């Protein structure tokens, strides 16, 4: 048998928790050659990060324990190595980049110092390291590397930080690069750039890349082969094209089916009354203008999707509409009254009509309240909605409406999965019988398959109850099956506003087109043609 660069055989890892032994990964096999990219695809809790942690010797023992298996790097078993040899391997031969570069860069040292450190700990002279750091920063595409070396991590944007992390990881020309969700925290346009950079550098150095992701699009864009994991078990492996076109395992099929942007789009009909008329809203924080004059109309019973990258002002807009923050100027007419000029008393009444579902349900639900308390709090605050004697019954009803069981009302939020928690948050918003629900990135913290379910739930609720939605997202495909109108924002301004069909099929503005092109398609062939097109005409909006 030919020797692989990395060969993981029969690896099993357990964690001893108070709830008993959890098998994080269970007898998995995979291998990787030089110059090849292998993707490990899985949702949260699938154990996709655990095997790479075992490769890097990052599993804390206890509570973790490697119960079986071998990990060969060029034929040498890493698991039986002495700790000292292992340290030589880490960083020098295997490097790693993480999802959130800000928390993995030390905030009190300059970027240059940190890149140099990676090299000097493995025996390079400091002058040589200095020169190499400069070259690397230039290579990963950071402007003015000389100045950048002296900056601190917080002075870079998210995409630049990820580039710095890549520079650090590649400082010693490793044989193997492990990338754990390297682009999940980045904007779509930046994501495409970072992935392209990774690919380029891989060709240059000839390393093997192990990329861990939950995103089929990332797999299609960068990987040669893919292994799919579910609940610690490896359920499918093969080349990216094969797995995408002929998935054998039901779980893989489910994942592929759940990828957003496949279903029928809503037809554009501008009937109905205007529910909310927003005119020229502006808001600045000091010198930073978050909103620079935003105007739109929302029809009753329709869904308006607001799409934009970080810094586009989409969340500020939501907070302003809910009066969590006061706008500088502008008006928002709601049933003939200006939302922004309501006195506190009427604002309190308005809260019934206007509700919000937040991004991260693990933070938007008070951890010390039961589900019953969380949902019925709405009626404590607005006692005229429902008499106390009917609370229990109504909570049960709402839970059923969002697809949970009435027995769940005695439990606490931490006893639920992320998707279930978001359902609880939706039930809470429904408790007030609102006419408009604003969803701020309501599905972006969730797994893909759960995302699809939550979106389906929201769409069903809209049909059943006639509630309008404002749905905020950073990614276009997510809103494709759900929105009636789409509004693309950038830097506090509306770039384009139109029916969903028009935005997706005939986008007028260059930025909308670029956003559409940058969002990754799960189909590797589509992705390959995107790449070819991008290579032919360099993106007009490199922001870095």
């Amino acid at each position, binding site marked *: 048998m030919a020797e692989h660069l990395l060969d993981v055989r029969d690896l099993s890892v357990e964690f001893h928790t108070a709830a008993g032994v959890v098998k994080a990964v269970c007898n998995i096999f995979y291998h990787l050659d030089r110059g090849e990219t292998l993707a490990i695809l899985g949702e949260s809790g699938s154990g996709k990060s655990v095997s790479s942690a075992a490769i890097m010797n990052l599993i804390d023992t206890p509570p973790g324990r490697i119960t079986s298996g071998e990990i060969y790097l060029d034929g040498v078993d890493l698991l039986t190595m002495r700790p000292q040899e292992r340290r030589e391997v880490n960083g020098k031969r295997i490097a790693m980049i993480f999802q959130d570069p800000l928390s993995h860069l030390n905030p009190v040292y300059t970027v240059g110092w940190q890149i140099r450190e990676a090299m000097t700990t493995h025996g390079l002279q400091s002058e040589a390291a200095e020169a190499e750091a400069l070259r690397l920063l230039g290579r990963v595409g950071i402007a003015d590397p000389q100045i950048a070396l002296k900056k601190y991590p917080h002075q870079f944007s998210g995409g630049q930080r990820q580039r710095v992390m890549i520079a650090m990881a590649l400082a010693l020309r490793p044989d193997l690069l492990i990338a754990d969700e390297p682009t999940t925290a980045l904007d779509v346009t930046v994501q495409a750039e970072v992935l392209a950079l990774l690919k380029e550098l891989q060709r240059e150095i000839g390393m093997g890349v192990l990329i861990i992701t939950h995103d089929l699009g990332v797999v299609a864009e960068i990987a040669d082969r893919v292994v799919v994991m579910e609940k610690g078990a490896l359920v499918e492996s093969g080349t990216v094209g094969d797995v995408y076109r002929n998935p054998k395992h039901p779980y893989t099929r489910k994942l592929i089916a759940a990828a957003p942007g496949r279903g029928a789009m809503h037809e554009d009909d501008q009937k109905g009354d205007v529910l909310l008329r927003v005119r020229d809203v502006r808001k600045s924080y000091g010198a930073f203008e978050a909103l620079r004059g935003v105007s739109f109309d929302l029809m009753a019973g329709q869904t308006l999707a607001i799409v934009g990258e970080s810094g586009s002002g989409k969340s500020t807009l939501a907070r302003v509409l809910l009066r*969590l923050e006061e706008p500088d100027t502008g008006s928002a007419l709601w049933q003939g009254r200006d939302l922004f000029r309501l006195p506190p008393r009427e604002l309190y009444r308005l*809260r019934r009509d206007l509700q*919000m579902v937040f991004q991260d349900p693990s933070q*938007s639900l*008070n951890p*010390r309240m*039961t589900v019953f308390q969380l949902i019925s709090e709405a009626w404590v*605050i607005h006692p005229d909605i429902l008499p106390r004697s009917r609370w229990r019954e109504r909570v049960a009803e709402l839970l059923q409406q969002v697809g949970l069981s009435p027995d769940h009302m005695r439990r606490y939020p931490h006893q639920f999965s992320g998707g279930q928690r978001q359902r609880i948050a939706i039930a809470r918003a429904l408790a007030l019988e609102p006419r408009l629900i604003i969803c701020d990135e309501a599905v972006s913290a969730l797994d893909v398959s759960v995302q699809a379910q939550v979106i389906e739930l929201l769409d069903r609720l809209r049909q059943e109850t006639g509630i309008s939605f404002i749905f905020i997202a950073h990614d276009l495909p997510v809103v494709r099956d759900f929105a009636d109108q789409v509004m693309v924002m950038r830097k506090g301004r509306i770039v384009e506003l139109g029916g969903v069909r028009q935005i997706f099929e005939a986008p007028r503005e260059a930025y909308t087109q670029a956003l559409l092109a940058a969002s990754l398609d799960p189909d590797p062939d589509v992705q390959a043609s995107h790449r070819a097109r991008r290579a032919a005409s360099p993106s007009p909006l490199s922001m870095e």
Partner: protein
Amino acid sequence: MTVSSTRTDSLSADEPAFLRRMGRMLLADKFALVAAVFLVVMVVLAIVGPAWLGEEALKQNLRGRNLAPFDWSRDWFWWFGADALGRPLLARIIVATQNTLLVAAGAVLISAVIGTFLGLLAGFSSPRVSQAIMRLADVIMSFPSLLIAVIVLYLLGSSILNLMLVLSITRIPVYLRTTRAEVLEIRERMFVQAARVMGASSRRILFRHILPIVFPTLTTLATLDFAYVMLAESALSFLGIGIQPPDITWGLMISQGRQYLTNAWWLSFWPGLAIIFTTLSLNLLSNWLRIALDPTQRWRLEMRGETRG
């Protein structure tokens, strides 16, 4: 307030009764159980002590000055030895429990309640109110606490109530600053925003959403403060403005034994031990309480109970 009380009633119908649940969780934690028993004994002693042993504790016996401990031939209350005037130490410790716990608990309670309330206010209200409260705290902190105590007690006269007040004033800033810092962090959390979107009043947000999260920190702080207050009280007594003989407290006993430390260690040792055990028990219990009140942590205690049963 009536709202929340009826709400807990309606919930207790399906949750196992609150007290029984707490009881079961207390059984699951051996240390906390011992601590709770110890504290109950202390409280009982504080209530019955003076009536029961008041006379023995004050009767001087000059032939038994600084009597060494562990003389098993005598009555049990001599077993810890006797002080400089030949009074049995064990009896004195038991009698002193009442004054000690009263002053310490009173002072801690007053300072915690006032400090927490002001802290909530400072963390949640307009910058101007917040500034005013914080500067007030700075004034109290920068003023030598002993000096305040001397002035106040000199003006008001020394009594147990005044002592409690004086000791609590100097500790208010501790709770105030801690509470405010936590409130500033918690008010930005998403579930507070969610409550605001629902139209919850500031009062509801403060007491229903923020206070329960701050509470565990405050109980830990309060138990630590308990020991501090006991010793601070002895310092005042030493200056002659705190509890005055023939009344006794543990702190006072320690300071009375100080001059005999080289030849009769037990004079200070036993009351010191009483203070240590009391605060240790409070600490263990507050640690348990923190876990028992937190729904995300509670399973640690409940699981232990089940595996044994």
